[in-house]
């Protein structure tokens, strides 16, 4: 094979990889900005919706998005106890979505899953408090935050139910037009 062809193939592959990285970086930035924009509304966030979509669209690439997102969060808001929970809680969602996404699921399913995740968020984030103060601190912290978890769960359900289909359709349309 002539070396020039190899070079052009390498160039195309390199450009594609760079484009992909840029796209993942953009998605991470969007995640961060949307979270900040909705911060005044307690426990109402679009992160769960986007993590579900990113996982379905990018698979393992979504893990890179999560790495960037969690690093940004820690850099801006400080590396406190909550940040330790952030290291694993979104990966748990990624894992669940990856397993559930092996079959075609309805938007209603994803809304319910996002709702369950929202309800479980406080419990999942309480484990660093187990290390910090023992089981009573962990359970007390979790129980005190249950009203916020309830808001989180129902808000996730509603947001995903409304926005999952339009965003997923947009993505599929954008990708199908690229391949034409």
């Amino acid at each position, binding site marked *: 094979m002539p070396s020039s062809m190899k070079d052009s193939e390498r160039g195309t592959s390199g450009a594609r990889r760079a484009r992909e990285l840029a796209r993942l970086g953009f998605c991470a930035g969007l995640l961060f900005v949307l979270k900040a924009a909705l911060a005044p509304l307690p426990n109402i966030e679009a992160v769960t919706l986007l993590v579900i979509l990113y996982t379905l669209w990018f698979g393992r690439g979504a893990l890179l998005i999560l790495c960037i997102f969690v690093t940004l969060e820690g850099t801006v808001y400080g590396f406190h106890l909550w940040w330790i929970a952030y290291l694993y809680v979104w990966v748990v969602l990624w894992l669940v979505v990856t397993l559930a996404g092996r079959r075609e699921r309805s938007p209603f399913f994803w809304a319910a899953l996002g709702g369950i995740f929202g309800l479980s968020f406080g419990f999942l984030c309480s484990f660093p408090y187990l290390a910090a103060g023992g089981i009573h601190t962990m359970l007390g912290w979790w*129980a005190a935050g*249950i009203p916020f*978890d309830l808001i989180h769960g129902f808000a996730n359900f509603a947001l995903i139910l409304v926005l999952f289909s339009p965003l997923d359709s947009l993505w599929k349309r954008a990708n199908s037009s690229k391949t034409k």
Partner: protein
Amino acid sequence: MKHLTRGSGLTAALLFIVLAALMLAVRGCAFPAAPAGEKQITISVIYADGAAEHFGISTRADCLKEAAEAVLTLEGEETAYGFTIYAVNGAEADFRKGEAYWAIYADGGYAQSSADRLPVLDGGTYAFIYERL
């Protein structure tokens, strides 16, 4: 080819509702609502130098913050964890500055929630204690 899994959405939704109901029940058990009517409680403040103040009050308040504000000046802000206290009667213990904080005790034990979420029970003893980090 993926095939649409019917019924999984309904199962997930059912699980969501059951989990929400369970969490409401846990919350109700962990933090019973404050009883209505007049309650006799004791509120103590222990400052950085060890000085203490004790107040025996009669209150209809539902939460400690509301009851305490009858005899104390509480300064702080609303956070995701409830009302976080930075000063009691002007004595500052702001954990954001990394030195000390105002710990809340209820009936001798470390309170598991903020002052605005802690129900006031008849005969209860509550304390705001300056503690170093």
